[in-house]
């Protein structure tokens, strides 16, 4: 086992398990707290733990991906884009995946091209305009069922200066177009407590 594998194994076999166990214990405690005034604080800590687990999973992927050769899935492409953006942004975005991203998008070549273009453009917008100290990228896929098709949603949120009077119209028109010609949606709005949240969502 090389050093990378050992670090990944440690993160997976020990760190994540302990965080998960801590979260379960807190959730058990929260369930018994009822309307206690501290309950919302506990809930926030559980969310933080979950967030940390998701980021460690991305980190493990990154560690192991760096050693892997050969063709890449979408997860790997997104990871590369996000890693490259760290320089211009001045911070490494937090990256979270939800759902079987690679499986559901395995044969969706042109959606993937749109997605990577939108992500690149969004991160570059944040780098140029937002002056953000923290950026979060979320990629969520849901499989379809009898009620309708699946969905791919990407969110890029920052804690920067917000939309204000900045002129981002040409770039965002392109993003909107890439969503709408697929029957999807594009929204750009304020993040709480500050900054901007971009959401791009299309059926798959």
């Amino acid at each position, binding site marked *: 086992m090389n050093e990378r594998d050992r670090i*990944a194994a440690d993160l997976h076999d020990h760190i994540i398990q302990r965080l998960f*166990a801590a979260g*379960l214990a807190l959730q*058990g405690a929260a369930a018994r707290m009822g309307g206690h005034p501290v309950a919302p604080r506990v809930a926030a800590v559980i969310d933080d733990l979950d967030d940390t*687990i998701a980021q460690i999973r991305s980190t493990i992927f990154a560690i192991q991906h760096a050693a892997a050769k050969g*063709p890449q*899935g979408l997860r790997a492409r997104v990871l590369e884009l996000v890693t490259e953006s760290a320089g211009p942004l001045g911070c490494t975005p937090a990256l979270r995946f939800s759902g079987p991203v690679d499986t559901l998008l395995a044969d969706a070549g042109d959606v993937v091209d749109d997605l990577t273009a939108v992500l690149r453009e969004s991160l570059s917008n944040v780098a140029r305009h937002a002056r953000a100290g923290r950026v979060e990228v979320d990629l969520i896929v849901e*499989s379809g069922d009898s009620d309708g098709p699946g969905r791919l949603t990407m969110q890029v949120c920052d804690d920067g200066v917000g939309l204000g009077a900045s002129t981002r119209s040409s770039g965002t028109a392109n993003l909107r177009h890439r969503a709408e010609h697929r029957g999807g949606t594009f929204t750009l709005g304020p993040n709480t407590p500050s900054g901007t949240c971009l959401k791009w969502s299309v059926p798959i």
Partner: protein
Amino acid sequence: MIRVFLLDDHEVVRRGLVDLLEADGDIEVVGESGSAQEAARRIPAFRPDVMILDARLPDGNGIDVCRDVRAIDSTIKGLILTSYEDDEALFAAIMAGAAGYVLKQIRGTDLVDAVHRVAEGQSLLDPAVTQRVLERIRHGVEQPRELAGLTDQERRILEFIAEGLTNREIAGRMFLAEKTVKNYVSSLLAKLGLERRTQAAVLATRLLGEHPHT
């Protein structure tokens, strides 16, 4: 009451899961273990409705345990509990003949709900997605290196696994002894790296998610 068996090598995780599951009121944890070998031996005797299996254990893996138990008693439903990424968790669940997978996350994935649904006989695996995985195994345009190393016999077994057949059923289809199929499955898991690799990423991505444009 839904009877559940837990397999996870972290005692703190098991304790948390017992609390979570039993708070439901309709779920009873009838047995637990931290060892794959021990669980494979003991689960059939407990006859739980659902077994919740950690995918990766120090002395084996939850995939083999799930297949071993279901070869003996296919009424016992399997749920793979894992901190893998979704793609790999999905693949592990298919390989295991499990009814679904649940990620080790507090929010989002509702283990209690998953146990209820699986106990009622539902599968949490989307048939369309499973089909997709199967298609890729059959007709992958560029064969990933892992698949290229498989013999025809192993590849056929992989397809049967993806169709959800138990080791016994596969043995019947291929006119092989069940023991022989079990050995094939173990060597498959080893070849695909599921046995030793940690979280990994790489495997399911390579097998299922290769992108022809890259």
